[in-house]
């Protein structure tokens, strides 16, 4: 990367476009990417997948080289080529579509002639060189030069269900961040003064460090030499302890302190390809196939030799070619597995979109690593296969012959019969965001649903936003504002016109409200569901529906560089709801309210503050104005009546601003109240020097003593609070805002702020003997009456409403994130917590999930490899694979899905896929009797949805009333809602006990009405 320094382009990163990816890579890494010119040689399926992801991610430029003419077979994986392009140069035909993806990344063409050999001269001048499907001898030649010149080099190839990647980032490559995890930190309680200074953490919080990590310290009292010290190397002694080397010449430790991990760069020494061929560093992509990389290492070399000798690849399922390949491979590695090499030979002329997506996503991330030095690169060879995706009936040689169709690459692997099955498959894709777009791309390439019986339903309620364009690659800037599902469906029907008429887009989100759309008939007419969702609620809902209708479900998700794919097969695996990730630990409310010690606490507080100032009061006012008897009915049960009425009075009468200036005054007073007076009050109750009973300072450890802030217009945080708060307050009242800081300064400084004296405790005036029970006579209720009188009657303000603020994190001009960042930082300043910038605050407050196209592409590929199995109807657990990846490390993990748990009542075993079925709308009495008579089960409670239809403690009257009711009637009676006409069956649950009075779990019940 010799000439990068001169090229440094300080152009700002478009945070709107790259928002989600910035949370994966960070600004520093993206700046380094912005000076890297990437060359991609070979733009068939794999090359274009890599190029697409790299262009989306944003580098300085991407240059493509592939002068060969487009063939019909290319269309099976190369999603940017069309029938009309056949015969044109691949690179030339691809370029315009690639260039559309990202206006910030110029895509260039490296000219050449068909048949022209690649040469070192061609690859000069780039910071990263990627070769796709280039013969081994050529790879060696180019790599010799890149290795000598310190240019990161990647060679990649896909053959049928096999893929290979080789990395050489040069003899000494510096990786600045090997895992992308946030630097660890934690509070400590002791540091021994010793040759091996032991550091102990506060109250059993795990430090999470590993041997060889580095740390530094802040806020240590006593052993102050540690504060800001040069990074010290850690030896882990236990989950709560580690040593930091010699501390014997330091001062005595007293108390406090925070350790912070310091990320140290790692130097990685890559071998050249020539060196690596004989002594390869093989990466394990699937621990169940630990000996396969060795075999494939020989196999791919043999394949290259075969190609050079025969000027073609082995023919599909041709035994002769396969035995030639086996003997070639055996010469390279006598231990190479014959069966695997044979399969490699059979499939070598094939190319399938899901494998291309897996390898392409992976390689693109490696390119970004080479540019940015962020995340640990692959060292050095990756071999991957998904032979399990082959159909259980292996196709014959004849069935795999090319037919001159765009699916030839897939037919070579799976055969025509299976291609037919693929084309007549019926899938429901739920979600058309990042995963959805990639899914549809793969589906269109493999020809899913293109046959006479095939159909794809795709739904997404969302419209396209700018921040989507960075990875939802079917969308272009002109599509912003349009429905995702509609645009995506049209885009992939354009990629593969066979899909026209076989893909239907919808906007109805899945959920109870749309069960008239996604009804029994709908589910009866699909073969399976693929989730491409971004939230747990919808995932759980679809899971539930798939269990009810016994449909296979493909589930996946990504988080930054991590992703997973899960297969759910009826009567075989557990369902999505069976195992869930533990949610994040929540912070106790008193930590947020009084004792914050981390920026996350102050951000949570300021997010609540946002609602408490700009959302809820305006809502209450509107409710008061619009709902009859709001004060009497709703509020009475809140337990907060007086406070709420006071708030309504304040917002509607006493503090209602008439001008924007008054909003500034209001926000200045808010500042005083929240960041000065409240803190003074807290310190009055709990003084900074308070001691606990053991003589320890009360404010110590995780409790950081606060100090009040004094307002100062020239402090940017103070001023930005005033600006944001005043504008949001004005928004509530429909007043026009202002952004000129001078105006705010002037007015804020002129506000007369009342002197504050802490309330001197709550002295109890009333003695024990006269508690005032009863209603009317008590003082608080009288207060309430007095306050209520101040309210104008709703009628007198007919039509008047406040405008509550609707939190929107992605609009940079609406002051929402500005307010939250300012409020959080002011509070952090109160508690001497390091403040956070707007970007970090936005992520935490907006709960933004980091995302990058590379991971999505890879995960979607894994899902589609499972889809082949679903289409084939595989019915053994070991046929399927759940996948987990982390591209940052990198890491691949696969596991067999977990079997559905077996439960038991009496002697009957059952799983979540079983159910009882009732036809003809039975009465409750018949229903309960059936359980008693048929299964010797006593039912103690019956429910449907959230309605409790009957319980054993219901009482005589209810029993008499409900037992004779038919189910449909009963449900309507209890839920007080009519059953919608499209509902033909009810899902019912019971609690039951067996003859020994033991509670037993029983399957759910379907009652047809």
């Amino acid at each position, binding site marked *: 990367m010799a000439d990068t320094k001169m090229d440094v382009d300080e152009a700002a990163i478009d945070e709107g476009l790259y928002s989600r990816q910035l949370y994966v890579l960070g600004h520093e890494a993206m700046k380094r990417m912005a000076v890297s010119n990437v060359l991609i040689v070979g733009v068939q399926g794999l090359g274009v997948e890599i190029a697409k992801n790299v262009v989306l991610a944003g580098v300085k430029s991407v240059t493509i080289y592939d002068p060969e003419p487009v063939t019909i077979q290319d269309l099976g994986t190369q999603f940017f080529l069309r029938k009309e392009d056949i015969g044109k140069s691949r690179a030339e035909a691809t370029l315009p579509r690639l260039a559309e993806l990202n206006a910030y990344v110029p895509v260039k063409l490296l000219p050449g002639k068909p048949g022209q050999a690649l040469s070192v001269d061609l690859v000069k001048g780039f910071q990263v060189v990627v070769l796709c499907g280039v013969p081994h001898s050529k790879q060696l030649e180019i790599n010799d030069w890149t290795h000598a010149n310190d240019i990161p080099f990647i060679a990649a190839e896909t053959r049928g269900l096999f893929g290979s990647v080789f990395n050489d980032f040069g003899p000494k490559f510096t990786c600045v961040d090997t895992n992308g995890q946030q630097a660890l930190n934690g509070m400590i*309680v002791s540091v021994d003064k010793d040759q091996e200074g032991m550091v102990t953490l*506060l*109250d*059993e*919080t795990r430090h999470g460090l590993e041997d060889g990590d580095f740390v530094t310290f802040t806020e240590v009292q006593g052993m102050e030499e540690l504060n800001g010290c040069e990074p010290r190397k850690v030896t882990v002694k236990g989950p709560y302890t580690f040593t930091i080397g010699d501390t014997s010449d330091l001062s005595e430790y007293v108390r406090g302190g925070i350790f912070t991990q310091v990320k140290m760069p790692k130097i990685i020494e890559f071998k050249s390809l020539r060196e690596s061929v004989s002594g390869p560093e093989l990466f394990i992509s699937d621990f169940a196939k630990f000996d396969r990389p060795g075999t494939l290492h020989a196999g791919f070399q043999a394949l290259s030799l075969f190609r050079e000798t025969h000027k073609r690849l082995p023919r599909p399922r041709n035994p002769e070619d396969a035995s030639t390949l086996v003997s070639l491979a055996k010469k390279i590695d006598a231990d190479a597995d014959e069966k695997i090499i044979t399969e490699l030979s059979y499939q070598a002329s094939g190319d399938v979109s899901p494998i291309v997506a897996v390898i392409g996503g992976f390689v693109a991330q490696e390119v970004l690593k080479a540019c940015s030095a962020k995340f640990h690169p692959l060292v050095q060879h990756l071999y991957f296969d998904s032979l399990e995706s082959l159909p259980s009936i292996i196709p014959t040689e004849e069935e795999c012959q090319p037919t001159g169709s765009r699916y030839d690459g897939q037919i070579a692997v799976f055969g025509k019969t299976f291609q037919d099955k693929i084309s007549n498959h019926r899938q429901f894709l739920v979600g058309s965001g990042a995963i959805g777009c990639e899914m549809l791309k793969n589906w269109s390439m493999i020809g899913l649903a293109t046959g006479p019986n095939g159909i794809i339903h795709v739904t997404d309620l969302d419209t396209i936003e700018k921040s989507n364009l960075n990875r939802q690659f079917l969308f272009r800037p002109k599509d912003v504002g349009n429905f995702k599902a509609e645009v995506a469906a049209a885009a992939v029907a354009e990629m593969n016109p066979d899909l026209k008429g076989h893909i239907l887009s919808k906007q109805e989100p899945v959920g*109870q409200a749309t069960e008239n759309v996604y009804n029994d008939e709908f589910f009866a007419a699909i073969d399976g569901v693929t989730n491409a969702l971004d939230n*747990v*609620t919808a995932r*759980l*809902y679809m*899971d*539930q529906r798939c269990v009810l209708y016994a449909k296979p479900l493909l589930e996946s998700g990504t988080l930054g560089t991590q992703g997973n794919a899960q297969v759910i097969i009826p009567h075989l695996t557990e369902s999505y*709801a069976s195992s*869930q990730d*533990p949610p994040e*630990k*929540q912070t*106790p*409310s*008193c*930590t947020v*309210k*009084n*004792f914050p010690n981390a920026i996350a606490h102050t951000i949570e507080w300021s997010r609540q503050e946002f609602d408490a100032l700009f959302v809820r009061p305006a809502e209450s006012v509107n409710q008061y104005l619009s709902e009859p008897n709001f004060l009497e009915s709703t509020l009475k*049960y809140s*337990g*907060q009546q007086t406070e709420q009425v006071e708030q309504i009075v304040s917002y509607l009468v006493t503090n209602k601003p008439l001008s924007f200036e008054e909003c500034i005054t209001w926000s200045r007073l808010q500042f005083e109240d929240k960041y000065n007076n409240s803190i003074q009050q807290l310190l009055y*109750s*709990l003084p900074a020097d308070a*001691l*606990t*009973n*053991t003589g320890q300072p*009360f404010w110590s*450890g*995780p409790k950081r003593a606060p100090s009040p802030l004094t307002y100062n217009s020239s402090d940017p945080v103070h001023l930005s609070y005033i600006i944001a708060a005043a504008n949001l307050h004005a928004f509530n009242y429909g007043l026009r805002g202002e952004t000129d800081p001078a105006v705010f300064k002037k007015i804020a400084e002129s506000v007369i702020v009342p002197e504050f004296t802490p*309330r001197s*405790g*709550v*002295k*109890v005036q*009333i003695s*024990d003997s006269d*508690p*005032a*029970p009863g209603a009317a006579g*008590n003082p*608080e209720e009288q207060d309430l009456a007095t306050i209520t009188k101040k309210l104008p009657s709703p009628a007198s303000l007919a039509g008047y409403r406040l405008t509550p603020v609707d939190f929107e994190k992605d609009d940079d001009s609406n002051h929402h994130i500005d307010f939250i960042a300012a409020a959080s930082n002011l509070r952090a300043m109160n508690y001497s917590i390091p403040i956070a910038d707007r970007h970090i605050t936005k992520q935490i407050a907006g709960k933004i999930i980091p995302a990058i196209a590379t991971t999505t592409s890879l995960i979607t590929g894994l899902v589609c490899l499972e889809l082949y199995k679903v289409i084939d109807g595989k019915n053994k657990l070991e046929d399927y694979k759940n996948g987990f990846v982390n591209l940052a490390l990198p890491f691949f993990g696969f596991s067999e899905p977990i079997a559905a748990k077996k439960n038991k009542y009496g002697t009957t075993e059952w799983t979540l896929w079983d159910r009882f079925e009732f036809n003809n709308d039975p009465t409750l009495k018949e229903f309960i009797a059936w359980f008693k008579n048929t299964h010797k089960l006593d039912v*103690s*409670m019956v*429910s449907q949805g*959230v309605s*409790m*239809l009957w319980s*054993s403690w219901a009482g005589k009257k209810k029993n008499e009333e409900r037992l004779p009711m038919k189910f449909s009637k009963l449900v309507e009676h209890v839920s*007080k809602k009519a059953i919608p006409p499209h509902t033909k069956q009810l*899902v019912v*649950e019971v*609690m039951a006990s067996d003859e020994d009075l033991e*509670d037993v779990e029983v399957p759910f019940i379907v009652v047809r009405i």
Partner: protein
Amino acid sequence: MSVPPAAMRRLMREIVELKNSPPEGVRIITSEDNMLDVTGIIEGPEGTPYAGGYFRVGFKFTNEFPAAPPKCWMATKIFHPNVSTAGEICVNTLKKDWKSTYGIAHILVTVKCLLIYPNPESALDEEAGKLLLENYDDYCSRARLITSVHATPRKKPVEFETPSAAASASPSTSTVPSTTLTIPAATPTTSMRKSPTPASQPLQSSPSNTIKSMSSTLSEGKEHVVSPSPLGTSNANVGGAASSMGPAPAAATKAVKRSAPTAGSAGAEKRKKALKRL
């Protein structure tokens, strides 16, 4: 808000259990047309300034339940250091120490314990915390006043007509040592409502009794996977727990965990002295 079927089933089971054999001093109100609409009622424990009051606890279940705790708040006004004026309750059980085996009963029993052993050091209502630390009697009077005004109905809620699990249990069953508790088998007759504690004696009234009866309640229902150390407030994560945790909760925790012999009135005396030092 929808709850997945498995979670719904768990809730049903809990509701059945809580309806049929509720723990001492704790009841629930359910709504037939929405089982997710559960309100807890906690009887103010005798010997505390909350005695005579009935405190409603609101629940809101999310689709992450039971992996994540339900949102819980005090819907009845109360003067208590760990309950904010807006009704938020600060107990670790409801936040960082939540376990997916916990349920409604566990939460309600935990909050009931919190009424007996407030933890002023993780105050949400710092005025209440300050008062509790500085002037225990004033704190009690104030708490009693608020209880009488806001939490004391003319008639005991009908839910309390159902006998508690402990009260209805036969002595032989309630002495069965629970797997989660290591308290020496308590005399099962000690039930809080029956204990002859004079109302004028506030907190120091024999907490050991309270705990015994609670433990017998807990050991009763096999469905209650109730861990008996629910008192951790946010301070439990403070280093060297003893150094920063007030002696009151420490004693309480000990009492529950190890049945500390000092947890009687002597312990309470110590506690008062210690509090004054603060």
